[in-house]
């Protein structure tokens, strides 16, 4: 006799939540641009938000990525419609720029087309931080990157440059 499989949804599971309880089945909380902008500007004007935003911008996350996440979250939570989110996206980006400039933080706007051959700045920063952490736990001393570059940029020894590949040194 085959063993019963318990890794399945219980019959009628889909009927256990209230009708129209999900956000996509309800009208949005903020129906107009004015209401949505008011909601976001109020939330973004707090010190708590600014601190987190600065941290993200300094980590290399672009302004457009942050604004995108914010508007997407708003749509998923049923705060506003997708139409409104598209219209307020540039406003959010502009306000994030404003916060960054008042705090004197350098930022990446992220409005250029995506270059598929180039890794994202945030990914590079994350990878470097991860490597540094691993090196620290393994007890490997940190390498001064500027010194390394200086050594690489030094011109080759003249004697060596004249000599052929197979030529023996005198």
């Amino acid at each position: 006799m085959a063993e019963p499989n318990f890794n399945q949804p219980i019959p009628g599971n889909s009927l256990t939540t209230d009708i129209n309880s999900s956000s996509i089945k309800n009208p949005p909380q903020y129906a107009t641009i004015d209401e949505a902008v008011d909601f976001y500007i109020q939330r973004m004007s707090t010190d708590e938000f600014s601190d987190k935003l600065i941290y993200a911008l300094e980590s290399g996350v672009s302004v457009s990525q942050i604004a995108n996440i914010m508007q997407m979250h708003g749509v998923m939570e049923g705060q506003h419609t997708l139409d409104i989110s598209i219209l307020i996206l540039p406003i959010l980006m502009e306000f994030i720029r404003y916060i960054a400039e008042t705090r004197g933080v350098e930022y990446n706007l992220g409005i250029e087309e995506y270059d598929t051959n180039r890794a994202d700045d945030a990914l590079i920063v994350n990878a470097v931080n991860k490597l540094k952490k691993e090196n620290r736990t393994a007890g490997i001393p940190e390498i001064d990157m500027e010194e390394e570059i200086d050594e690489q940029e030094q011109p080759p020894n003249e004697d060596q440059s004249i000599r052929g590949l197979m030529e023996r040194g005198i």
Partner: protein
Amino acid sequence: MLINPAGMLYRKMEASLSDEAVEDEKVGFFSRGGLQKPNIDQPATRAQHYFSKIRSIREGLNNGRTKL
């Protein structure tokens, strides 16, 4: 190259605020509707209004005209 939608919207919004944007149809729904008077109740026009407001504050801050 992949299209960056956020960047595209931002550039269009910026372009729509320039003086040349009046007759430029490339700015799409952010355009000022040619020589017609823009309808201020339209969502796109409202968005433009807020964008230009924040931008003028930011630029004023950079130029030293606005103080915190």
